[in-house]
Each structure stands twice: as C-alpha cells, then as structure tokens.
C-alpha cells in the first residue's frame, strides 16, 4: 500500500480495475427496466425520478445506454411527472412570473419538488433531449425562482423545507437549462457560506454539523456560482481526506461507518477542489469492488450487504472519478457523464 510515488495514489492499479463486473451491472440495471415489478419497489416509489436518473446515468457510465429497451416509455414517464405550480397556495412569492412555473414530481402521482426537477432535467440531458429541455427552460426557471427565499436559501417545494441540498439542486438545474440569472446567485452563495463550519465542511442549515453529502452540495453550488475561492480549501480538503478509513471506504462524518455512497460525495468534492490525490485511489477502488454483488450485479453500501440502484450509481460514479478505463468519465460538479457536458457545450473545467 505504501508507495513513494505520489501519482500511484491518483489512479487505480490494473488488478483493481479488472474486478469491475460491468456486464452484471448492466444486466441488473436493465432488469429494472424490463421487469414490471422492480420499479414498484415500495420504498423508492415516491422518488422514482431520482431512481431513473441513477439508473440511466449508471448505464451511460457503463457505455450501455443504447441497450435501453424502451426509451419512449422513459420520456413518457418524465412527461407524466410535469406539474404546473402556479395554482393558488403554491406560488409563495410575490415576484412577477413571466412564464407559468413548471416543476417535476418524484412519480406520476406525486407533487412537484426541486430534487425531482433536477433529476428530470438530468435524465433528459443523459438521454440527449436538449431540445425538450430548452422548450421547458423558462417555465422550469420560474419554478426554481419561486423557491428562493430572501436570505438566498432555497425551499425544496412550496411547503418551506430549507436545506443546502436545495441550493445545489437549484443552481445546477438553472445551469443545465441555461437560466442562471433567474435567481439571486450572490444571495445563494452567501447562504451556503453561512452553513460553513470551522472544520471546513458544511451542514444542512446554519450551525448544523458538517456532513459529506451536504459538503458535496455546497461545494457544487459554490463551484457553479464561481465562488469556490471564498472558502478555505485546505481545511475543507483536510476534513474530506480524513473520511477514508483503514478498509479503504469513505465515511460521511467523523467516527461513522464507511458507505459506498460517500465514494461519490467525498471524492467529487475533493475532485472539484483538485485534491483527489489526498486519498488513496487504490484502496477506495478495491473497497467499492468488494461491495459488488457478484451473483446478480449491482453495488451495495458496503461489502456483504444487499445491492441497490442508489449505491450502484454512487459506486460506479466513484470508480469513474478514479479513472476506471471501462467507464465513461463523470463530471464532479454536474454529476453527469462528461460526454453529455460536451454535447451541452459547457466547459468541463467550469
């Protein structure tokens, strides 16, 4: 494990890369599409839009999106989750609205929510439906704008929950639809900075403990706003690199257990800070590989546990950031394949 060459920490060894069960993972993801029951999994039903984003992006990372059997059904599903949100009681701001607002729900019978609006736009982007995105852009922008509060924070929906996750979801959605000027970006940045802690990390609201998931959202939001230079990157990087545990996996907070999902949240944050080499790529890669289900495909939260689509996506995304040669590169800020970012003509270094 110990090496004197710094570079060996930046990428995985061939022996680790060879452990990826790519075909099994594609099969497990396609089973989600083909089998009528699998999408009905009770606990994911309300956030099927996000599950769709995890599954589609996983397939894209595995360079197997073309194997999707019924693309039309996916588009119909996304269409079925569109929600006009200008009805009474839902528009909580007094701002004049040029376009009627449009948000997306977690499923066809759910309400609009910012998180699923981002997931829907990401799904459309992965599928290359840029014309569709542009056609709805003004209405989606109106929805996102209606959720910003005076202090710069964002609500998740019309019912007022505030969380830094929504700051990222709002700014990324607007970036993807090219309507960043729809909100007060400076206020959004100031709110995110108000959730920064001494340890360099960020919490869900001011004074809340740092959490790697929130750190990802806050670093992403600041990066989207071009404001990452306003934080102490060395302290933040220190906190992030300490997430790696002796088994190679990453935890989300001090003295917590490792979980494959932090492979994405911690690593993408380090990547946005250009400090990915502050953790050991080989050890993390090997940990994710051990969490694969070698019988049915998919990746679990940690070795020996049950695989699911959420951890499958975050495991593959982590391996992609680590530079796995069989996987499409994922962009740490957009959480989308770099090929999609190129198609959108966005700068990959942004």
């Amino acid at each position: 494990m110990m090496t004197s060459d710094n570079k060996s920490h930046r990428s995985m060894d061939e022996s680790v890369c060879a452990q990826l069960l790519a075909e099994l993972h594609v099969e497990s993801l396609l089973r989600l599409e083909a089998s009528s029951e699998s999408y009905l999994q009770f606990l994911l039903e309300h956030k099927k839009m996000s599950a769709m984003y995890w599954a589609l992006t996983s397939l894209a990372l595995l360079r197997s999106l073309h194997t999707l059997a019924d693309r039309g059904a996916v588009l119909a599903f996304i269409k079925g989750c569109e929600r006009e949100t200008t009805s009474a009681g839902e528009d909580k701001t007094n701002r004049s609205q040029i376009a009627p607002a449009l948000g997306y729900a977690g499923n066809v019978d759910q309400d609009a929510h910012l998180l699923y609006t981002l997931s829907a736009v990401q799904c459309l982007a992965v599928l290359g439906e840029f014309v569709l995105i542009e056609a709805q852009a003004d209405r989606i922008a109106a929805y996102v704008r209606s959720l910003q509060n005076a202090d710069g924070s964002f609500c998740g929906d019309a019912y007022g929950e505030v969380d830094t996750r929504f700051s990222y979801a709002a700014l990324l959605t607007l970036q993807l639809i090219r309507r960043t000027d729809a909100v007060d970006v400076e206020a959004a940045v100031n709110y995110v900075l108000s959730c920064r802690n001494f340890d360099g990390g960020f919490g869900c609201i001011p004074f809340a403990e740092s959490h790697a998931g929130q750190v990802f959202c806050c670093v992403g939001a600041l990066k989207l706003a071009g404001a990452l230079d306003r934080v102490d990157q060395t302290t933040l990087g220190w906190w992030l690199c300490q997430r790696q545990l002796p088994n190679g996996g990453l935890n989300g907070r001090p003295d917590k257990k490792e979980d494959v999902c932090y492979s994405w949240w911690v690593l993408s944050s380090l990547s946005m800070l250009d400090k990915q080499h502050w953790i050991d790529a080989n050890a993390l890669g090997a940990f994710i590989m051990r969490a694969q289900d070698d019988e049915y495909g998919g990746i679990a939260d940690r070795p020996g546990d049950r695989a699911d689509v959420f951890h499958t996506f975050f495991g593959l995304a982590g391996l992609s950031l680590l530079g796995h040669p069989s996987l499409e590169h994922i962009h740490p800020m957009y959480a989308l394949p770099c090929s999609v970012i190129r198609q959108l003509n966005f700068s990959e270094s942004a």
Partner: protein
Amino acid sequence: MLSRSSVLSIQHKTFIPCSIRHLVLCRAMHGVQRNTLQAAQLDESGDRIVRLAAAAHAALECARTCLLSIDGDDKDIDGDDGALTNASSRTSRIETAMKASRAALEVNPDEYTLWNFRKRVLERGIGDTPGKREPGNKTQEMNSLDVWQDELRLTKVALQTHAKAYPAWQHRLWLLQQSKRVDAEMHTLWIKQERVLCEMLLAKDERNFHAWAHRANVKRLALQMKSELSSEPAAIPGCADEHGPDMIEQELEFSKQHILANFANYSAWHLRSVTLTKKVALLGGGAEHAEAVADIVEKELDWVRNAYYTDPDVESTWIYHRWLLEGELMERSSSVISSARRHGFLRAELTALNELVEMEPNAKWALLAKARLIRFLASEGQDTDSQQVQIILARLRELDPFRHGFYADLLSMQ
C-alpha cells in the same frame, strides 16, 4: 395525468415480486446483509410490500380526488349535485383520504405527497375560526386542537420507526411553525417540549443528523418566539427564561452528557463548539471578561486532554481540539486574554501533546496537532523548534499512507 399503471407496463394487480433479487435490488437499503435475510422472510415481506404499495397508491388517488373536490369548492364550481350534497360528500372524502394517508404514512413516511395533502387539509382549517363556522359543518373538527395534537403524534409514530424520513421531519417542523396560527399557547408548549422527542431519538441513534438539525431548527423557533414575546412580556410568563443564557448552559450540559457517553460522538462536540462560541459572544469583548474567557478555554483544554489520553485514535476529539486551538473561541479570546496567559496555556498544551506522542509514537492525530501548534506558536514569535513541523509531516506521510498526497502538499506549502 398518466396513471402509475401506464408507465413501464406496471400493473398493480399483476405485481408479484416473483424473484427475491428484484425485491431487494432496488430498495435503497443500508446495512442489510445478504445472508441474514432468509427466503421465507423475503416472501413474507414481499407480500407485505405488495399490500403496502397498493395502499399507498390508493391513498394518493384518494388524496388527489379529495383535493380536486376542495379546489372545486374554493372556486365555487359546483358539480352535478347540489351545494349541500357537495359539502357533505366533500367532508366524507376528506375523512376517507385523511384516514388512508395516515395508514400509508405510518408504514412509509417518505411519501411526501401524502404529507403535503395533509398540510393542505390542515391549512384549510386554520382560517376556520369558531365564529366563522357554519353550524353543522363537519370540517370544523379539522380546526380543533385535538386534530393538530393528533397530527403531531402521527409524525412521532412515523419517526419512531423511520427516524431518517426527511418528509416526516419536515412535516413536524411545519406543524410546529404553523401551530402559532392555530393556538399561541399550544405553539409555545410544543416548542418547549420538542427536545423530548429529539432526546428520545438521539438515545436510539446518537448521530442522527436529522434529529440534531431539528434541534437547531427548534432553537431558532424558540428564539423567534422569545423575541415576539418580549414585546408582550405578559403573554406567557416565565417562558423567556427558558431561552436566555440558561439555554446555553443547558446545551453545554447536553453536549457534555453525550460526549461523556461516547467521545466519538462528533455531533455532540460540534454542538459544544457552536454553543461556546455563542456563550463567549454573549459575554462581549470587554477586558472585564478576559478571565472568564480564559477559564473556559483552559477548562475545555483540560477536558479534551482527558478524552485523547483515554483514546488517542478518536477523530471527533481531535477535530474539537483543533477548534479549541484555532476556532472562533480562540480567535475571540486572543483579543481579550493577555498574550502571556494565552501562550502559557498553549505551551502547556504542547507539553501534553509531547507526552502523548512519547507514549504513543504512532498517534497520527496527536502528531498533526503538535505540528500545527508548533507552527502557530512560531507565527506568534514564540521560541519553538519550527524545524519539527517538517519532520512531523514527513513522518506522517509514511505513517498514514492513504493521505500521502495530503501531507506531501502540506510539506510543499511550508
């Protein structure tokens, strides 16, 4: 609107989780071991899931119909029936939908749309004051305090079994906020009692960040309440005392209990750092508080020393240690405490770290803390062996190989 069944050929009636792997593949389950679930258990839970999914679907449909009916009423659009029939069928629709959504939420509180539905029904009741009610209008029951109490209980039931369900926490916070519009006394009581629920859930999982964030949100509500009450001091006598400096002492005691129970509970250390920052801010920047501030710092250093001597490998302790030496408290104290006293206790801390490192030469956290303290003392013009910083970082680079790149970058920054 597309129904669920038209999407991806999903048919509720034909939904049979025929294969065990499909059942578990898609559920975002944390910590469920492959070998601990027996096939029989899976079959049973599979049947259960079919029933629950159907119940959730029915509740959503019920809520949708109900909202259409309510909106129709609000817009004065009557259907085929007469107005009276409409009112009574609407009431029964609301009751049915409330019942169905309750049953569904008790088993899956992540169904946020069902919580939204309940908010909309409760909201309708808020403006419905007794004076405005029509006699015989059953919806007036929706306005009673019992309904709101019951709703709060529902969130408690949900959180007891699903302590990480975002929508249940959000609904509870919404109830706490909105209760002000329903009944001021109830609102005050609820906010005062809320710590009971948080403590109950933290007793089950001391790191539940939802519970910790909820505590922070409730404190904010309590402060809002206090500032509103201070303009009308007679409104709730004695309440304001709950949220003054006493609250700070309560919070310090609360964090202390959790830390003593487990040094590795960073959530509690974090609360302590945030609270001490507030405490010192309340003292003000005057020189008369210099001794008080210095005493706080020394007492905390003493305490944290006990923690790291007990177990030098607990990360939480060391993050708090770093906060003590470099955070808001020290920042503020540096303008108040005399530099002689400050350097005195920093040097004492260096001695303590040296002793630890002698006993535990591989204690990486202690080594890093030592390097930072030496560098800090040097920057303050104190006579220290600043060569040591490079030596320690080079040693850490070998001792902690996963973070080789981190130490290498720190070394190049020296």
